[in-house]
């Protein structure tokens, strides 16, 4: 599976991952090689097989919906790159 530069740029856009021109070329070659190695899975017939998302049987987990204290606002906001009073400050999504 050989990836084109356009495909690499498209994947980066989907992941909102900025790449330099040099990175686009480097990842194009490396990802193409890795995807080629994945072709081995085509040898296995998986028709009618269920997928396994987790290795142990899972059940829904519920807890009582009871009010309790949250983490202190200050501690949460201490990690914020930008803040305004008690709020996270971010760039406008719609300009």
């Amino acid at each position: 599976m050989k990836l084109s530069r356009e495909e690499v740029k498209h994947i980066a856009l989907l992941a909102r991952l900025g790449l330099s021109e040099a990175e686009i070329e480097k990842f194009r070659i490396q990802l193409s090689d890795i995807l080629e190695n994945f072709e081995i899975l085509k040898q296995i017939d998986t028709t009618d097989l269920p997928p396994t998302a987790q290795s142990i049987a899972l059940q829904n987990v519920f807890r009582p919906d009871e009010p309790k204290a949250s983490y202190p606002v200050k501690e949460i906001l201490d990690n914020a790159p930008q803040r305004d009073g008690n709020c996270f400050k971010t760039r406008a999504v719609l300009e």
Partner: protein
Amino acid sequence: MSDLHQLTISQAHQLLKDRNISSVELTKANLARLAKVEDKVHACVTISEDTALKQAKEADKTISSGKIEPLTGIPALIKDVMCTKGIKTTCSSKVLESFVPPYDATVIDKLKASKTVILGKTNMDEFAMGSSTENSAFFPTRNPWNLDRVPGGSSGGSAAAVATDEAIYALGSDTGGSIRQPAGFCSVVGLKPTYGRVSRFGLVAFANSLDQIGPITKNVADCALVLNVIAGHDPKDSTSAPYPVPDYTKALIPKLNNLRLGIPKEYFVEGMQKEVRASIETAINKLEELGANVDRDASLSLTKYALAVYYILAPSEASANLARYDGVKYGFSYQDTNNMWEAMEKTKQFGFGDEVKRRIMLGTYALSAGYYDAYYLKAQKVRTLIRREFDQAFEKYDALVTPTSPTVPFKLGEKVDDPIQMYLSDVCTLPINIAGLPAISVPAGFADGLPIGMQIIGKPFDEETILHIAFAYEQSTDWHKRKPPI
């Protein structure tokens, strides 16, 4: 006593219990050892000396009041992927370089309840992605047995720290071999418990269906002691298993009375170093002498597909998990842009290293429209087959024995630009994460002074059997007693 840092958990516990030493003395001995070797090994990213000494004083008070548990007052190091309240948790990434969590991971809660002493946080491959600890955004850790070699990854800092006696024990995390491979490379004991055995709450997620926290220790008995404390159900982790926790120290029996062991031939891969093969074969003979029934013709025919399955599933989960580092709520944030989208892209471009970017791209591709069925769904279906094959093997065998890695520790820089070669380092360990099984690596020899590890794989939630086998083997050899020349 000048060599307190060399103690095991059991030895230190006895001395603390008998009041022959204090936790403060022990902690100071480890901090002194850290100060002495850290500029050569670079195992730690944060050393929290003040907090550690405060915890040691509290532990001494607890001991004076007559309450002592096996980990009380014992100094430990924690892989920097587990949240520690008030202590930086960086995942060795620029994105989290200044992140201080407002809460503790459940395993940290449990260690604190035991009054263990936390010395600091250990270096790792960024977000636990890698096999050599060279992907740390800060600096590579070096193998204490040979400083030109890698300590393995991604818990390389934790394994190197235990090998050099910087800490009495450490915690690591294992998504595809990240506890066992560095344990093998540094000649210490590393256990990946069954998926769900230890809570993942507060473990910064890499690949949720594969990640598991586990101990890295100087010997097998210590490993059982740490597992006793960290294992168990946690309501905060919906994938945590609601099963009771046995006392793992009861599994430490020196004879292998007719245990059935399978040696899957596919794990002796093409390209395996002949010294590794020879050491593991010698170790298997030893297991036989100890009373095990060994079948050298066991087969796990799907092993060759595990690498592809892993490198589709793990990056897919990682690409979803790492989307949260958008520079808004916490972590590195690139601000000098014209709009929000550009800020997000630049934050990731300058915040993440190469391996993380590579896996985000792989995962995004495998999950994207048009490729989901061919890659992600296909890998999940082959995962079903791999798990079934292990289940069938465990109808015949109590445990499986393999090398931990196909080679001895490789040189720094040797594989860093060749992702496929690097991925092959974990070829013996990652099938176990795909199937969610427990496995342990124990020291099993040396080639030219470089360590070789043996992996013992168990049935789901049967950590007792693999600890039993590992203990019996360890008691009949002295590999674990050797110390690196540092």
